[in-house]
């Protein structure tokens, strides 16, 4: 017993200062892409050809990246002869609408908070049920990590619960396999209303690397309506937390 107490003292307090202070993000992290407004070389489609998941479209000489499909692999940035695409260390990628995940030159619309009624219900206490529907366990692991002492999700009133009957919302990972579509729908139906749905990672938004496979449904919104999208493959835990806090209106303006 005394050894456990001593070890507790030695291991120190480890909860991050975020969101009061900026998060610590790895130097080489590939977060939100920045697309320079400069026009591309006529006829060049190197970035689009390099993209493994057809996330890039070229129209009127400007590049758009669908962050809902993007694996943040950086192959497009490496292929671009002009350095037009650059992946920044910005972890803020969450959006409320699928269309808001299209990144072009200029500002992106980040996720807004729930409306007043929903915020009153869930703003200080949000219980989530997690369902993995074909996920590779990377998104799942980095959602799970929010429960550790490092992120201490409980301090925001957010908690993962064991039954959909106890939950206010569903957090979905994976492309939604054929074999999980029914279980996912039943889990959603078991949630009391009003309820929210959060899609985490490229798979849950668009199918990710499995998009187009006959074995999957290309994302959660083929089966249930989605209220929050957090792109990434997988998104960094801070990106997921940022999305959750934005949804609940818990971030200071300007963050």
């Amino acid at each position, binding site marked *: 017993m005394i*050894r*456990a107490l001593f*070890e*507790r003292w*030695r*291991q120190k307090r*480890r909860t991050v200062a975020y969101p009061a202070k900026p998060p610590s993000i*790895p*130097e*080489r*992290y*590939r977060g939100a892409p920045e697309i320079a407004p400069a026009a591309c070389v006529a006829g060049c489609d190197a970035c689009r050809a*390099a*993209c*493994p*998941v057809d996330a890039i479209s070229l129209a009127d000489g400007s590049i758009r990246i669908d962050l809902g499909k993007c*694996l943040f*692999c*950086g*192959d497009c940035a490496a292929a671009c002869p002009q350095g037009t695409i650059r992946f920044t260390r910005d972890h803020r990628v969450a959006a409320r609408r699928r269309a808001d995940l299209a990144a072009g030159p200029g500002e992106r619309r980040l996720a807004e908070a729930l409306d007043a009624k929903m915020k009153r219900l869930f703003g200080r206490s949000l219980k989530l049920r*997690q*369902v*993995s*529907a*074909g*996920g*590779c*366990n*990377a998104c*799942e*692991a*980095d*959602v*799970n*990590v929010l*429960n*550790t*002492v*490092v992120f201490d999700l409980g301090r925001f009133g957010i908690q*993962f619960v*064991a*039954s*959909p009957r106890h939950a206010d919302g569903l957090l979905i990972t*994976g*492309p939604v*396999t*054929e*074999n*999980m579509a029914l*279980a996912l729908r039943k889990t959603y139906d078991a949630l009391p209303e009003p309820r929210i749905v959060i899609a985490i990672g490229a798979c849950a938004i668009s199918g*990710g*690397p*499995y998009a187009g*496979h006959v*074995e*999957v449904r290309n994302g959660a919104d083929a089966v249930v309506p989605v209220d929050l999208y957090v792109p990434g*493959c*997988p998104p*960094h*835990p801070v990106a997921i937390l940022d999305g959750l806090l934005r949804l609940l209106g818990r971030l200071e303006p300007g963050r």
Partner: protein
Amino acid sequence: MSILAFRHLEKIPSDQIPAVSIDAFRRDVLGAIAEGCRLVAFYGMPRANAAVRLVAVLAHDRSGELRAVAADPGESYPALAPDCPQAAGFEREIAEQWGVQPRGHPWLKPLRFHRSYRPSRDAWGRTGPESPPPSVLDFFRVEGEGIHEVAVGPVHAGIIEPGHFRFQCHGEQVLHLEISLGYQHRGVERALVGGPHPRTIHHVETLAGDTTIGHALAYAQAVESLAGCRVPARAQALRAVALELERLANHTGDLGALAGDVGYLPTSSFCGRLRGDFLNMTALLCGSRFGRGFVRPGGVAFDVDAALLADLRGRLEATFRDVGGAVNLLWDTPSVMARFENTGAVSPETAAALGLVGPAARASGREIDVRRDFPSGIYRFAQLPVSAVAGGDVFARAYVRWLEIQRSVEFIRGQTASLPGGAVRAPCGPPAPDATVVSLQEGWRGEIAHVATTGADGRFARYKVVDPSFRNWPGLALALRNQEISDFPLCNKSFNLSYCGHDL
């Protein structure tokens, strides 16, 4: 004896794998098993005229030799499973994918619940275009007074992947556990055919997301062998560092989760944090906590400089000190040891018969480790001792992880202290046509096996993936025999197997 013997990562012309009669095939495979070989892969290979060829790959760990033999069975053949339990899962897979019947198979059920890859050749005679519903089938049942059945899943209580578990119980005692998976089936293996294409590396990196480095490494080695590419020494060292970091993160997380499952919260919460610290070291290398984008055919995509190396080594020492403090509490706490010891024991004989791999096998006294038996890359020059213990119970599976943590840290210290100079990536050309290569890697869960076969166009005609979880799920089922059902979470965590790695 018509079997072909070859070396790990040796590029062999596919037509050198002898295709023999099914009787000779059975004799060769069972003979090799009797000699101490393990079945590494056993799969169907589509041929012209809608026929399917069976290919078996075996490993002789002591001599570091691989063997392969093939047969054209027609639409059915006498099953190997009754004489060779480790073939059982492979034969279910072959039946499901290609509709080839293993006659006399003791438990021929689908594994992943998808339609046959050969239209109108269904092993269960199912017709119709719709996908078969998962787990909607009879389960093995125990009958008698006081016997009851417990069904769990596919959606579980925690943040974990889906699977269905069916227990036959007498009171608290589990008489039999049947595990029915397939919920995570997303068609990866099939999508690998026709590659390499731009998505291939991403499919490989997500075969089992917590084993990104392990699978990417097995894939990269296979492609490099087929293309005749020589990987620079510096890249080989960095790859091994990343592979050991992946092992450290997962072993640390598992020890914390085991502590959590017996209600010992100090180690549980310390290790939850420390696991992330190892993931952050991988992110230091390549920006991704799971190592996405690090391993690429030809080498690695990111180099390190002196400052990064110093940062990495500093973090490694600090984290390892804390892991030691957290983990050693387990062995000194009687309430933890009382739950770990003699729970979920798997005998060495069972481990061998099922072909278990990785820490689960080594905890049952099986001294096998790809890093020693089939070394590749830097492991040919820098050996790690094999961490095997006797016992086969939850304690043994936990203790093997702690031994491996210490040895991985020692290994990374050595590699980062004397990192070779030079480039980190060499150009890697296209794979050679009509060739086959077997690529093995010791992932943190055990042996990852990739068998790549190219067609005349140099594209993958077949790419077989065997995740260690595929080998070890039956081990968990047998570990539960005659245990209390309340020990299931603990036994499950002591294996910590991948659902998506199994389901592919």
